[in-house]
């Protein structure tokens, strides 16, 4: 079975976010790209795949295709799915080295994301990033 791939590219996210100045537009976009994500099949929505530290339920299933990490991530909350779409745009189908080298905090700053998230929600996003990083580190030599 093929698991969900990122539906929205990083360039799309960057350019679209640039147009918005209201919180409402940003959230509407997050909800849209979240809804566009293919849902994780029920068989993968199990406790073993839960990311710890997220307030909502977030399931993450990693798989390697050669040296590229293929990620399927899903949540039961729409806004979280939108954040997942951003994480996927940054990390999915990249090598562990590319993942670890990518400046995700810089991306969050650029999108002014953290300023619009409650600290709890921001921590959940960081927990997701931390999980992907730890998988990437396990598969990096050095």
């Amino acid at each position: 079975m093929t698991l969900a791939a990122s539906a929205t590219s990083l360039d799309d996210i960057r350019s679209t976010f640039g147009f918005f100045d209201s919180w409402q537009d940003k959230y509407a976009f997050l909800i849209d790209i979240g809804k566009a994500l293919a849902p994780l099949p029920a068989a993968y929505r199990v406790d073993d795949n839960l990311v710890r530290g997220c307030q909502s339920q977030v399931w993450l299933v990693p798989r390697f295709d050669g040296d590229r990490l293929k990620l399927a991530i899903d949540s039961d909350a729409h806004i979280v799915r939108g954040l997942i779409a951003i994480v996927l745009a940054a990390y999915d189908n990249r090598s562990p080295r590319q993942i670890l080298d990518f400046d995700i905090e810089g991306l969050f700053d650029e999108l002014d994301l953290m300023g619009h998230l409650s600290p709890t929600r921001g921590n959940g996003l960081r927990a997701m990033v931390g999980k992907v990083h730890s998988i990437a580190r396990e598969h990096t030599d050095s």
Partner: protein
Amino acid sequence: MKDSSWRGDFPLLRNRADLVYLDNAATTQKPTVVLDALARYYGCTNANVHRGAHRLSDEATAAFEAARETLARRINARSSREVLWTRGTTEAINLVAGSYGPLAVGDGDRILITEMEHHSNIVPWQQLCQRTGAVLRAVRVLPSGELDRDDFDARLEEQPRIVSISHVSNALGTVNDLPTLIGRAKSAGAVVVVDGAQAVAHFDIDVAALDCDFYAFSGHKMYGPTGIGVLYGREELLDAMPPWQCGGEMIERVRIEETTFAPLPFKFEAGTPDISGAIALAAAVDYLDRQDGNAVATHEAGLLAYATSSLNQVEGLRIVGTASAKGPVVSFLFEDAHPHDVGTLLDQQGVAVRTGHHCAMPLMDALGIPGTVRASFSLYNCLEDVDKLCQAVRTAKSML
């Protein structure tokens, strides 16, 4: 009623004028008199208590023990020896489970709680069961959010040694019919513990009339500071209970071979207590005592009724918890929206609510929902706050 005559007493609401604060079941804001009591204590009276070596310590001790008297009066305890300071409801219940629990239950004995309990009235009993071999049972909750009284009666037939129930559900606002429940539990031979965390800000508590054995509550949910709470306990039971934490303050005479313990209530108050917290909590109680209780109750009931009818008009919104007797709490869900999404969008609009399982996962499981959005009201909220909530809810709904 459009406004609240109490609002001006709370500096935070002035300093955060744009905020619609509807998370009062989590913690209330503090009136000026409470902030002043804290500042006055540290500015004029700060010394350690019960040491008696100097005048300042005597003054601090007098203020600290006067605070205990104030709390004892507020809940109609027979004596201030029955009022123990704790960090809050959680610590109070842990104290009962940790000290009284092993005296009361052994292998196979029953402890009865309900499905609507906050985790702090579940987990301490689970731990006690693990240590003693006792068995934890929970009374079922009906879809309305009320206790299943038939199930309660059936569980009492198992003769639980301890029955521990909330006065008011933190997640749904359901007010349990304590006089009846306590009466039946005591007839069945149980010792009754009440989690009063959600009741103390809204109702007059009379532990003598309730005839409960223990009553636990937190100061910060009744306009007092965080970090201070009360365990009321019946004196005969407290006398029989062993100390829970040990150290200074709780001893009478210490030898390396043996220690004799201080009398009540000090036996249960090891270490330097939260002196300023206790004094400021008494200031919060004085504040409540000075208000017209009927006016507060009418105002809060009005907020609940208005919020219930207003939210019921939002299409697709379902109120969770429809008990006939409720505290000023409205929990709700949209059919197809996650409560966290709704909460996030309300937060963006300056409306502070709580979302999620409200530390009551077994209740959410029993109701078959992932959680709720909870708006909880206090005397300083007004109808305009409810209108802003409903407007923000409609905006969130249109986005999801």
